């Protein structure tokens, strides 16, 4: 597939990549030969040198705009050749890309390999951190990823528990209120009538409330959502519907088809900030290792909210909650405008997650 071929490209034959870009290099000339066998003294990309490189690239408008020639000129470092800059620039560019192709079709193993490769490349290009072994770093990243996944899972459950509990309070209040309402006649305030509706729409009372205060679009969406909610048994969580302070009402509501936990993990999860040292060696390639291992964490900048919904819907499966897969699939197909992947991935994910969770003692006890 495209993905693997690209890997092959990167791995073995960097030169062809260069040629595709049609750069007039003095050193290259032919394909393949010069690069791999050239007995040039290896250049150590120290931290300072890399920083200068990054400065130059930034000055020139980013890695896509900069060319080795211009970079060389801007950096003005003696002894730096186009060859050095080309390879370094290529690595740098790859480091910047979100690698969307990965998410489309690949198995977990491929992903792991890919992430390991990214690690390698990045560590080689970002600084002279050759001392630290690849394995160590990779393991660290993996560990952190697993931990993060756990945190996510638990957070979801906790928010739901809170929501359930709130339900009990609201129900109680609703009952007393309905009783009072019979007695009194002069209820004028709008939001109180909203509370009355708690009795009718216990699944999404808060959303109902907001509808009273808020926009029409949400009202429509909420109605579609309620209709499509297939799980009455679940006391759904109030919060997440509202927690979506993003301007994407459509995609936000699609994932609520399970009725369980329509929290959308926004694309701005900023997971790259989460893994301290691991992240630093990943550079800005924060999304990739995650994608490699866990489709669950769909952090695509400006990308597809559907995949986030994907991720979220799978979580219940992984967590052992019984959701009828068929229903799940059907509803998710209905809701999502452009599914990123077939839902079969769900099954494949679960063993992975199961495996992940049983590894070692998690901090969650």
């Amino acid at each position, binding site marked *: 597939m495209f993905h693997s071929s690209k890997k092959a490209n990167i791995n073995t034959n960097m030169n062809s990549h260069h040629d595709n870009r049609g750069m007039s290099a003095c050193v290259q000339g032919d394909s393949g030969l010069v690069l791999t066998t050239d007995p040039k003294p290896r250049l150590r990309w120290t931290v300072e040198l890399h920083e200068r490189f990054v400065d130059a690239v930034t000055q020139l408008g980013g890695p896509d705009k900069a060319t080795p020639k211009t970079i060389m000129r801007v950096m003005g470092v003696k002894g730096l050749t186009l060859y050095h800059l080309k390879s370094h620039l290529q690595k740098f560019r790859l480091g910047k890309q979100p690698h969307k192709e990965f998410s489309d079709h690949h198995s977990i193993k491929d992903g792991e390999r890919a992430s390991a490769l990214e690690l390698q490349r990045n560590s080689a290009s970002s600084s002279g951190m050759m001392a630290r072994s690849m394995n160590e770093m990779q393991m660290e990243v993996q560990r952190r990823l697993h931990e993060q996944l756990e945190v996510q899972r638990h957070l979801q459950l906790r928010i739901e528990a*809170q929501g359930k509990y*709130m339900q*009990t309070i609201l129900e109680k209040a609703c009952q007393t209120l309905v009783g009072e309402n019979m007695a009194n006649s002069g209820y004028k*305030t709008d939001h109180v009538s909203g509370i009355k509706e708690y009795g009718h729409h216990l699944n999404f009372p808060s959303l109902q409330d907001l509808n009273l*205060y808020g926009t029409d679009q*949400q009202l429509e969406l909420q109605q579609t959502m309620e209709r499509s909610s297939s799980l009455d048994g679940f006391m759904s969580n109030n919060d997440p519907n509202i927690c979506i302070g993003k301007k994407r009402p459509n995609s936000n509501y699609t994932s609520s088809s399970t009725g369980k936990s329509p929290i959308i993990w926004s694309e701005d999860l900023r997971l790259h900030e989460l893994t301290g040292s691991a992240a630093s060696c990943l550079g800005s390639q924060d999304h990739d290792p995650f994608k490699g291992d866990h489709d669950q964490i769909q952090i695509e900048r400006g990308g597809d909210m559907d995949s986030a919904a994907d991720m979220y819907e799978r979580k219940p499966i992984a967590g052992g909650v019984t959701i009828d897969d068929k229903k799940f699939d059907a509803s998710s197909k209905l809701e999502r405008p452009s599914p990123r992947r077939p839902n079969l991935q769900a099954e494949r994910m679960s063993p992975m997650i199961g495996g992940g969770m049983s590894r070692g003692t998690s*901090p*969650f006890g």
Partner: protein
Amino acid sequence: MAMIIDDDLHEFYFPDYGNTTTTTTTTTTTSASEDELCNWNDWSPLMDWEALSNGQDQDFRGLFESIMDDDNASLSQLHSSPELYQHPSPQLHEDSSPELVMINHDHEEILNNSEDTKGLRLVHLLMAAAEAMTGVNKSRDLARVILIRLKELVSPTQGTNMERLAAYFTQALQGLLEGAGSKNNNVLLSGPYNNRDEHQATDALAAFQLLQDMSPYVKFGHFTANQAILEAVANDKRVHIVDYDIMEGIQWASFMQSLVSRKDGPPSPHLRITALSRGGSGKRSITSVQETGRRLTAFAASIGQPFSFHQSKLDADESFKPSSLKLVRGEALIINCMLHLPHFSYRSPDSVVSFLSGAKTLNPRLVTLVEEEEEVGHTTDEGGFVGRFMESLHRYSALYDSLEAGFPMQGRARALVERVFLGPRIAGSLNRIYRDTERCSLGNYLSAVGFQRANISFANHCQAKLLLGLFNDGYRVEELASNKLVLGWKSRRLLSASIWTSPELDL
């Protein structure tokens, strides 16, 4: 015709109008015929501009002058807004000022400017009022006048964030001025904005639900504390949590669920919660402590968590006696102290201090503390009342902004939250500032009496970040001082969650 325009107005370029019509929205243009380019009635159907402008020039001029004396804000379209508010027509208050000032809807910059300048003007007025109340040239009369002016400009349910915020601050200052500032916040609750006693409970519930959904503050406090507790009691069979202010007990629902779903390790420990209850009235909790206890017990039963609930009454002066707790040998004692969450009422610092010092004598396993975070560089005494007033203003402004950023359309929902929770908190906060109650950081206190900092785990920090990811971008979490996570909006720190342990004992 009597042109009341100042020369300043000529600075604004209105390409479609000649000089005669540069009067912003004030209706000094006496007849529609003069405004060939603009029919005022079209702009604001609620106002009958022609009627307004007939024969009232004199009044307007007087008003203008008084307004110009009043403040030193930019003398732009602001000329228009005050006297329009002054006009007895009740419909005026329905519109927010920017609409009226919108002469030509192409000039969006002017629109925004007017909002900003109006906001700025409100801030100036508030500051002036605060100064008048306590400054060197203390003058209650002046303060009163300023507050009257402010009340005309703002409404707690309409307008921009700044306007609504200013309304509550105005009311709070009013309360201070009239000497209604007692410990009991209920007095302030019965101001003109809060006249709905019969709906209070349901309002409070709805508002709390909304607050929870719209902002991460409550969850942040609860989850951070819970995670720290979970980690601390990983291997214990009995856990005893003493909760300073249990409110509805929401925090523990989630905690119990976490206990029950622990994968590895021992089965779920027995959980005991002792909630402190206050004897006196004047608390704004939605439910009584007993009710909360019942609910938690039912919830625990529903998820299979061994649980028991106790109550411990505080003394009349809200001081805490450790002997009033029932302790069991071998249990892990946790002290949980949630203060300053947006839906909490302020507790007197003395009470909290007595609680924490009493707790210290019990050598708890862990102390979790959630409180307001002070802005760096702002000590409690800096700038006196005015300084702290302004800081409070900025803090709540950030709070309002954070709510609006997530839910720009749900103005009424936010107005409800503001009315039920934030308004009274503003009043209480100003009350304490005015009476110069030290706003000590309880974290500092804990450290001073000998508690040790406990590290915030990676998982905890990660959870906080993930939580914030569910909300608007503007929220930030930082880790300060190794045992504290601070939640902030944009650059302003608002809430901090810290964890502490007792110093190691020789057993």
